């Protein structure tokens, strides 16, 4: 059991928790939170599994840095849209599936 494997395993569990969190609650802020946890899980797997022998590996580390920035970008966009929705409808929830027919 190495540090890498411990966090890779936690990452897998975090990912699963995050996915469930995006799918289940209705409040958008909580969905966005869950998405971030999901991403963090994937990042932990990337670095942890890559470093399971114990040696640091700069390649997945650099990939995760890229991933974190992408995740922030997506979070900011999602939050801005959620706030717009809040401003327009008064609630931070997706309206029930509006299949217009």
């Amino acid at each position, binding site marked *: 059991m190495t540090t*890498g494997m411990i*966090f890779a395993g936690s990452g897998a*569990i975090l990912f699963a928790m995050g996915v469930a969190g995006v799918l289940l609650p209705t409040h958008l*802020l909580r969905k966005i939170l869950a998405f971030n*946890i999901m991403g963090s899980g994937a990042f932990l797997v990337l670095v942890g599994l890559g470093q399971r022998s114990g040696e*640091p590996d700069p390649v997945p580390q650099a990939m995760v840095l890229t991933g*974190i920035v992408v995740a922030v970008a997506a979070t900011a966009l999602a939050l801005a849209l959620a706030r717009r929705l*809040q401003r327009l409808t*008064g609630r931070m929830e997706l309206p029930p599936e509006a299949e217009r027919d």
Partner: protein
Amino acid sequence: MGILFDLLLAFALLWSAWRAIALTDPASAVVQFIVFGLLMALAWARLRAPDIALAEAAIGAGLTGALLLDGLGTLRTGQRQRDEQHGSRP
């Protein structure tokens, strides 16, 4: 010794993530999430990834946390407005 710390940290990570997802009150969820972000920074340090630890603390926990808190502010004002509208109705 190190492994024990890692296991404790991993447990704390999972616990804070679980709380951030399961708490129904968005405000406490956001606070839990910021805690989660800081724990993540610690985990990166344990994985000998100081660059990510720095980025996670600054961008992940810091910026995302601040954005979420800001979103929370909008939420509050929105709710207050709605309450006021309801209250003012005869």
